[in-house]
């Protein structure tokens, strides 16, 4: 994926939204400012205050735009996103990535103080961030998170876990998805990453549910 192509396409999508001219103009100004003087404080403020400038409406996503995005980054989808979420992910792509440590540090700081919707945007952005291997631990922290929307942002329609998680982390994702009533058919890579250890754990889990007199979650049989 080229960051530039993704960045341009996401901004183009924002521009296509009704009454977004002022928001897009604001975003371009902030990008110019960041290029002149890449201060972390500016980067954080724009990320945090995003809903004030771009709004929180659900985006309209024409099929050809969804196709264009998927072509730049296979598996990546912005379907069902709000404008602030889209703009935040776009903004993350504006951060200069030439210095790996500085880049990883700056984004890690955002994770540390993030509120709910910021976390959703941050986890949604993992597939398009630079240095993909550096986010593995944070991604597993997203699975441990107990806030449903945050879990969904990393578990569902997100290609990052299937690409980056080792077997143990992947299996935790699947188990946690069952335990938190997610629609597991929305997990990217569900069938490609089937493994013997997971099948065994799910078999035990099914037996435990039956012993407790509780129903099995939907779609579990497909993984057994």
């Amino acid at each position, binding site marked *: 994926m080229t960051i530039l192509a993704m960045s341009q396409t996401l901004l183009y999508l924002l521009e296509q939204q009704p009454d977004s001219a002022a928001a897009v103009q604001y975003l371009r100004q902030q990008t110019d400012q960041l290029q002149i003087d890449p201060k972390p404080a500016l980067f954080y403020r724009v990320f945090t205050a995003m809903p004030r400038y771009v709004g929180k409406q659900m985006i309209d996503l024409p099929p050809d735009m969804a196709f264009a995005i998927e072509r730049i980054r296979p598996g990546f989808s912005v379907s069902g996103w709000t404008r602030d979420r889209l703009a935040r992910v776009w903004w993350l792509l504006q951060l200069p990535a030439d210095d790996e440590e500085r880049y990883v540090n700056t984004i890690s700081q955002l994770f540390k103080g993030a509120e709910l919707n910021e976390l959703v945007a941050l986890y949604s952005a993992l597939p398009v961030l630079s240095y993909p291997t550096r986010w593995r631990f944070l991604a597993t922290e997203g699975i441990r998170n107990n806030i449903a929307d945050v*879990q969904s942002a990393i578990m569902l329609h997100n290609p990052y876990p299937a690409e980056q998680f080792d077997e143990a982390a992947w299996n935790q994702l699947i188990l946690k998805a069952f335990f*938190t009533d997610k629609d597991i058919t929305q997990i990217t890579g569900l069938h490609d990453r089937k493994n013997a250890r997971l099948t065994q754990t799910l078999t035990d889990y099914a037996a435990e549910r039956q012993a407790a007199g509780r129903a099995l979650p939907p779609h579990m049989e497909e993984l057994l």
Partner: protein
Amino acid sequence: MNFMDSIRGMSFFDMHVHMTSRTTDDYQAMADAGVVAMIEPAFWLGQPRTGVDSFRDYFASLVGWERFRASQFGIRHYCTIGLNSKEANQEELAEQVMEILPQFIYKEGVVGVGEIGFDDQTPAEEKYYRAQLDLAKEAGLPVQIHTPHRDKKQGTSRSMDIAIEHGLDPGMVIVDHNNEETVRETLDRGFWAGFTIYPFTKMGNERMVEIVKQYGPERIMINSAADWGISDPLAVPKTAALMKQHGISDEAIRLVTFTNAVTAFAQSGQLSLDELSQPLGIDQSQRFNGSSVLRGGQAPRVDKESTIIK
């Protein structure tokens, strides 16, 4: 008569409550009694924190986990963010907290800087109170002032003097924990007057009824300030019931238990009467692909009367 009968169908906004210290039983009881929204001011956790990361995690929990917990009961959770007066006295740490505050006050649902003000009325408390007034002014946010328990009357006057000295419009300042001795000056000077119904140490609700009768409902708002002490998260609905029993009009009750707080804190741009009149469930931004927040196998309600736990 059960107090719930007289307030059925009314909606309440508890503009000061520390849910971090409360259980899901309290959330359920509040939702049942008509509390639809609340503000959780950042405060002292009962013992001093020893590092800035504890503050960061606490602030992050107010805009994250606690908001999510509230949403599971259909309650909108807002917060005010600030360095409380007690911990302003640990100056080295206070400096570090001041550095991270700008990262939090612009976040969604942060409706003010608070609760800030005086405890012992030390020079350090004054220094950080002033610094945070400037921060609020710069961000265009309302201020939620904690007035001291000791030397209260003087401390309340002084808090208002300093706010005016820093160029804050009294209409942007909510002076909290008022009592019979402070209310007149607070209202006279154009500030919002918050009252905390809290057993033994702050206001009792019979006294509150008298205050509303005497001063009327304009610019007055009540809260529970329920926290880790012996306090009552149902203080707002109970006081509404008591006001009703004493013949205070429904319109006046609505002002002091709901509308005034909305008007004051809506100045942050982070909440509105429109938003509060929508049921939480239809706010699409809180959802993912149309699924609700009630997840994790968590039943919306546990039957407390039943001996059977499933």
